[in-house]
């Protein structure tokens, strides 16, 4: 799969009304107001309104992962959650820049899976690589096995642009967050064709 020419206009993110309604566009305020700024708010503006470093993953998701990682009796301070939220964006940018650089060096325009894994290895996250390869494999198998469900289109030969429209089949997955609220997340598959009889697999060397 190649290319991603879609808009990054934030108002077009999230393909279904369901996702938008429960979206947690937590964009970090400049001043620390405490509680109310950690709530969801609708984002009517575009990405350009916010600095690169102001884009974060929703704190509820981050906090839940943290809570499950530490011992059950452990607690997490609020400023630690906010802090990790920022660290996450830093991590994503860190990996992406490295992957992007390698991509450019090899005169390619699309960042692929190999670039990401290579970047992780280079930047000291080598320990993630094997588990990630496994996850990717499971993910593909799970997609392939679904009856009547479009599979994941992989492989350069398909030449399909990865646009936001391509995420046409969100699979809603409900998760219960640590504070008991149900949160809807979307697992997206892309459809190059309505039905994919076979799925081409990428083998990582």
């Amino acid at each position, binding site marked *: 799969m190649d290319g991603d020419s879609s808009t990054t206009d934030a108002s077009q993110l999230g393909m279904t009304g369901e996702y938008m309604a429960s979206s947690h566009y937590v964009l970090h305020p400049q001043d620390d107001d405490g509680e109310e700024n950690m709530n969801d708010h609708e984002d009517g503006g575009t990405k350009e309104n916010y600095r690169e470093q102001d884009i974060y993953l929703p704190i509820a998701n981050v906090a839940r992962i943290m809570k499950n990682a530490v011992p059950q009796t452990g607690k997490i301070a609020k400023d630690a959650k906010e802090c990790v939220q920022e660290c996450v964006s830093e991590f*994503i940018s860190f990996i992406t820049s490295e992957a992007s650089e390698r991509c450019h060096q090899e005169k390619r325009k699309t960042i692929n899976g190999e670039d990401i894994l290579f970047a992780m290895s280079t930047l000291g996250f080598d320990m993630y690589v094997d588990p990630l390869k496994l996850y990717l494999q499971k993910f593909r198998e799970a997609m392939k096995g679904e009856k009547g469900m479009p599979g994941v289109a992989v492989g350069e030969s398909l030449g399909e642009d990865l646009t936001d429209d391509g995420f046409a089949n969100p699979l809603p997955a409900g998760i219960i967050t640590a504070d008991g609220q149900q949160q809807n997340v979307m697992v997206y598959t892309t459809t190059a064709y309505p039905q994919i009889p076979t799925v081409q697999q990428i083998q990582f060397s």
Partner: protein
Amino acid sequence: SENKTEAKAISLPISRVRLIMKSSPDVSSINQDALFLTTKATELFVQHLALTSFNNRSQTEANTLNYSDLAKTAEESDTFHFLTDILPKKILAQDYLKTLEQMQDEDSDF
């Protein structure tokens, strides 16, 4: 089929991960594998950072992970060292003023 759900389920919004990736300079396109791997890696990263910092915390009796534990981990760990710029160690204002005073005293000796 529970395994399948588990394999597919990602607890972070992919589109948001993509937005952050796209905000990096010179990034044109990201294929689906790259997006999935980055999202999954981010989950691992959060777990890794949280647990390492928790085990490394200065106040072991409190059983709480604090900002300072994260800053400490960033400082002391090779893996997380890239975070030191955004995790400055916080110092108490009074300690800072004291240090400033000391520096000024040293200057006045010359």
